């Protein structure tokens, strides 16, 4: 293996509506950047290789695995984490539905589910169970059995469609 150079790069990224400029190691992951440099620990790291979906964040409007994206790759882009979605009230209805439908227990996977569901709902997703399951198929939950999560997203989708 070749020596992996440790270089520093300056990253300018808009996180949750706020511009951030940080100089980080070139190979620092976005999830670590958000959690350790910006203190946004709502983004959880589960598997760290793209399988569990717990680290999902929105980058330029679409969900991505923060563990599979380098912080440097977020340069010039707009990132939204679960904190930002919460603070702006964008997913208040979704969060409420999760609580009422037992969409979470331990809560570890919840930020990822909220982000994935937020993307689905932002795209006008229908309250269709199959479509919701497909949209959330990249997120793993070991507590709820998914039923409550699916119900919460379906309920929110119906409500948003009036």
């Amino acid at each position, binding site marked *: *293996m*070749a*020596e*992996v*150079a440790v270089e520093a790069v300056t990253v300018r990224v808009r996180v949750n509506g706020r511009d951030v400029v940080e100089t980080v190691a*070139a*190979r620092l*992951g976005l999830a670590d950047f958000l959690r350790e440099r910006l203190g946004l620990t709502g983004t959880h790291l589960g598997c*760290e*290789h*793209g399988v569990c*979906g717990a680290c*999902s964040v929105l980058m330029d409007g*679409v*969900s*991505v*695995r923060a*563990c*599979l*994206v*380098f912080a*440097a*790759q977020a340069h*010039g882009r707009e990132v939204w984490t679960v904190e930002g979605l919460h603070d702006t009230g964008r997913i208040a209805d979704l969060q409420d539905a999760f609580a009422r439908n037992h969409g979470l227990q331990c809560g570890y996977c919840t930020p990822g589910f909220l982000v*994935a569901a937020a*993307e689905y709902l932002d795209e006008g997703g229908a309250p269709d169970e199959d479509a919701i399951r*497909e*949209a959330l*198929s*990249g*997120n793993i939950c070991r507590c709820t059995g998914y039923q409550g999560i699916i119900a919460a997203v379906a309920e929110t989708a119906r409500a948003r469609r009036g």
Partner: protein
Amino acid sequence: MMNLRLARPGALIDIDRMDGLARVFEDVDSLIIGALVRHRRLERDPLVARRTPLLREVARHIGHVGIRNRGTLGGTLAHADPAAELPLAMVTLNATVHAESLDRGRRTIPAADFFTSLYTTALAEDELVTWVRVPTMPPRAGWGFAEFARRPGDFAMAGAAAVIHLDESGAVVHVRAALMSIADRPLLVADGPLPHPIPALSSHPPAGERGVASPHAASPLPGEKVTPPHRGGEGEGVSPDPASPLPGGGGPGAPAHPASPLPGGEGGGIPAHPLSPFPGGGVASPRLGGEGAGAPAHPASPLPGGEGDGASPHTVPSLSAEQGASRPPGEGVASPLPGGEGDGAPAHSLSPLPGEGAASTLPGGEGDGAPAHSPSPLPGEGAASMLPEGEGGRASPYPASPLPGGEVASPRPGGEGDGGSPHTVPSLSAEQGASRLPGEGVASPLPGGGGSGAPVHPASSLPGDEGDGASPHPLSPLPGEGAASTLPGGEGLGVSPDPASHLSGEGVASTLPEGVSSHPASPLRGGGVALPRLGGEGGGASAHSLSPRTGDGEQGVSAQPRSPRSGDGGQGVSPQARRSLPAEQGGRARPLAVGVDADGAGVAWDEVAAVWTDGIAVEDGYTRHLARVALGRALRDAYLRAVSGRGMGG
């Protein structure tokens, strides 16, 4: 890869901002796709869906949304994972990869030459994948894709993609197919005409083909006609079918029956004949039975066939019952045929494999069959389905064939089924399914054939022919498939179609729906034959089992099921099927096969898949089995789409 430290590149260059490579251009006969186009876009872009529908389909199988939002075409090609979908699709579509270096400029590399080994490509160290030129689907071409993964989004344990080109007469002139997860790179297993002896074809063809012809002849004709019809309207297909069937039946009808008989006659030739004797169809079945089943089967088949005669009996329940019983044996084979399907659907599926096969068929038929099938059921689905329609037609068939037993049976089913809606039968189905199946298997075939009644006959004929061919088995196989396919086809694709078909009432037609057309013909044939095969195969079965696949594919199975089901809920079946394991699916596979080419010759796609997968060195038989099933489904779907004119993704 880097997270797991499996890759620790000394230098990393982010090309994410080269927006110029994130575009898709449309050319006269191809799409030019940039290396930075995301999987998510391939999945949703209307242009991609219209011009290269295979890419849209495979993209949906890549990971999950969050992965597809980031993954790029150039990335997956350069990564060269032998279990990845896009490399498989590019090899199958005969795409050309454009690689560029600062020093040497651009060069183009055929996808089949681009992948050299595990995670290894023909790219030089200073080269970057920039564009990929993907030939688009021309008229009279169809595509198919199927994969087995333990969970949606996981890397596939096995998968296959195929593109089939037809000439103006509807005959298969070129097949290009590849497998994934079975070698150190996407493995191109076909790039030319169908295998000579085409197992299935051979069988049939022989017969079918002219040799057999007679039967076929009959069928063929019918078939052909049918085919046309199909095409024409499949929808109408029905009519066509009917026609066909009829034709078959009728056409043959008169003849047909005779034909069937023929089969019988022919068949007669052989054992089948005995069967045939019966109805011709009977024969067929017999054959099947005979053949397929081989002995047991025979018995069974016979049954079927016999049945056919017996059939009538069958027609009912008896059949079922008996069949069941007897059948079973027969079925065994039969089942296989049937697909065992049917039944067991799931269960079958699996086990069955053979059974399944049958099942599948059944499934189609049965499972659902019930519904539609019911009639079909018999027909095993295929037939059945077909039949159904055919049925109407059948009726005649019956008359004619019907008797024949097999058909009859089927017919019944169908006819009846119809009556019962077949389903009614469901029981039948069920039974049939079971028995039937077997029976069907045979029967079906027959039925199918028969079912088709006329059509069936054709089929039967085939069978018969086949039967003769006996080569039943051969036939069977074929037949089986054929049948299966038919069904499947019908179904599979059909699915939608099917529904229609169903509607059609065409029984056949439906089935055919898409494939339909084909099917119709095929059905017949297919049916006829197919089943046989099945039966025959049945044994092969397992393979067929594959059919189960049908299940698989959603389409596959589902489709089938559905189709059959149509009536029912197609899904019903499908779902199960699907859910069932791949295995099951496998079982269903059966359906796969069938398809009839312009010539009306029946093509047992799963048999063709076997020819192209048997020589591959694989560590375990299960992987080979999955690859074969997947390939059979991909071929069947490609054929049906080509026949239905939906190859372009419409």
